[in-house]
């Protein structure tokens, strides 16, 4: 699904201008890094795509649908096409790794036998099979991140949004996570990754959209993380 953000302005009350006249097109299967300092609008941009936020001006089209026009039930079905990896993982602490994955499939009414099959498959793929009965707090940071990615991708979304997926991880684990994300992208899933991690942007070069003060200051294919521009 193509993402089109057209002339979007977002103002939060009373007068915080989070995004100023943003226009971006992200074709299906693209991999985009959103870079920029804290408060530059990266997270707001991602939340426009999940429709947690609506633009004050302009419009967001995903797969040709104007997100503002979605009703509650349509929004639910639309969100099944989107996977989200949160910066703080947001795993459910009272559920085991296995249950954290089955829960999101149950929530969209998937048949039980398919849930088991897919959960086992993804646990194996993410290297979490042996840790499946542990609770999130018993997992390492990298394992929690892998579990969060597994949860976001288990329902086979067309778009994956990842907010600081390598934040608080050591370099080796960050690389491991990036390889997983690239393998997901290779299957045709669109990836939008908000990051502060210069190493991964420069090492795994993809399209880079740099934001500052709610404006796009750079949109470059196979771009680099440029400290002067991006911070």
């Amino acid at each position, binding site marked *: 699904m193509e993402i089109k953000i057209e002339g979007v302005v977002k103002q939060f009350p009373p007068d915080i201008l989070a995004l100023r006249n943003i226009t971006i097109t992200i074709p299906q299967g693209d991999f985009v890094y959103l870079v920029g300092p804290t408060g530059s609008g990266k997270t707001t941009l991602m939340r426009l795509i999940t*429709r947690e936020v609506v633009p004050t001006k302009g419009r967001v089209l995903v797969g040709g649908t104007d997100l503002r026009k979605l009703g509650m039930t349509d929004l639910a079905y639309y*969100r*099944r096409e989107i996977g989200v990896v949160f910066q703080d993982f947001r795993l459910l602490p009272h559920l085991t790794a296995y249950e954290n994955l089955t829960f999101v499939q149950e929530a969209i*009414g998937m048949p039980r036998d398919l849930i088991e099959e897919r959960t086992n498959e993804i646990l194996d793929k993410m290297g979490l099979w042996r840790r499946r009965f542990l609770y999130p707090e018993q997992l390492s940071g990298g394992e929690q991140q892998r579990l969060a990615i597994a949860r976001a991708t288990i329902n086979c979304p067309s778009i994956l949004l990842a907010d600081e997926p390598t934040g608080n991880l050591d370099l080796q684990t960050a690389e491991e996570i990036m390889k997983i994300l690239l393998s997901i992208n290779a299957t045709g899933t669109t990836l939008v990754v908000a990051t502060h991690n210069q190493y991964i942007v420069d090492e795994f070069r993809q399209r880079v959209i740099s934001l500052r003060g709610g404006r796009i200051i750079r949109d470059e294919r196979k771009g680099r993380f440029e400290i002067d521009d991006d911070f």
Partner: protein
Amino acid sequence: MTTFKYILRDAFRLMTRNVTLSFLTLVTTVAVFFLVSCSILFVMNIRNIVAGIENNLMITAYVTKDKSSAQAVAEKIGNLECVDSVKIVTPDKALEELRARLGNQADVVTLLDDNPLPPSVEIRLKDAGAVPVVARELLSMEEVEDIVYAGELARRLETLSAFVSRFSFGVLVIALAVGALVVFNTIRIGVYARREEIEIMLLIGATPGFVAFPFVLHGSLISSFGALLAGAGVYFSYERVVSALMASMPFLNFMTDQSVVMDLWFLLVGGGLTVGWICSWLAVSKFVRRAMKPR
């Protein structure tokens, strides 16, 4: 089918996760529905008693002991348009009826040496409005010594019945409001305890109905189960209570039909289900709407 199973399982998970709260809500709903059914039965009995008195609305004219007096009065009054029927009651017949009405306490009558009851004429009227006219007519007859009629009593009881109905309706409304509030708050606490789960569910594409249903089912089950228990309590104790009341007040016309209590039981369960459903839905849908509302 998977969705249905999930909803059922999740509803039971909600109950077991907050056992104490669920139990307290159940106890409250039992108390509320017990109070509701008691007030309904109270009103029904009052109405039954009043209706009994109204149906027995007749004028009893006590006549002189002369054998022909009763016959004469019956003939004269029977010709009036507003009179439905006339019945002569001999002293022996009157004593027999008294025994029947006293029931278990009929033995008291045996203490009497002679039958002190005078002959009488029972005049049943077509219309309660004709009571004063017929009463005046009877009092003008020389054979008539005294007259007794329940018209005034019925009117007073009707006023009392209307007051009791209004009061009971007030009790019913307050009790239902309390019950509804308790169910609403229980579900709301459950919703807030799981708000993170709900937010994630909504973000990954769970429909509002799917998120809300386990909570709605939880509230409906507690409420209807509470009503079921309250109904059972009322059903199995009503007969004993009415028997005890009838033994001490045999002259009052209590409602003895258990099928009415059974109907009330079904009504309570239906009411419990409805109240639980509405309150839970209100509690959860408000949260879901807010969670899905974009900023």
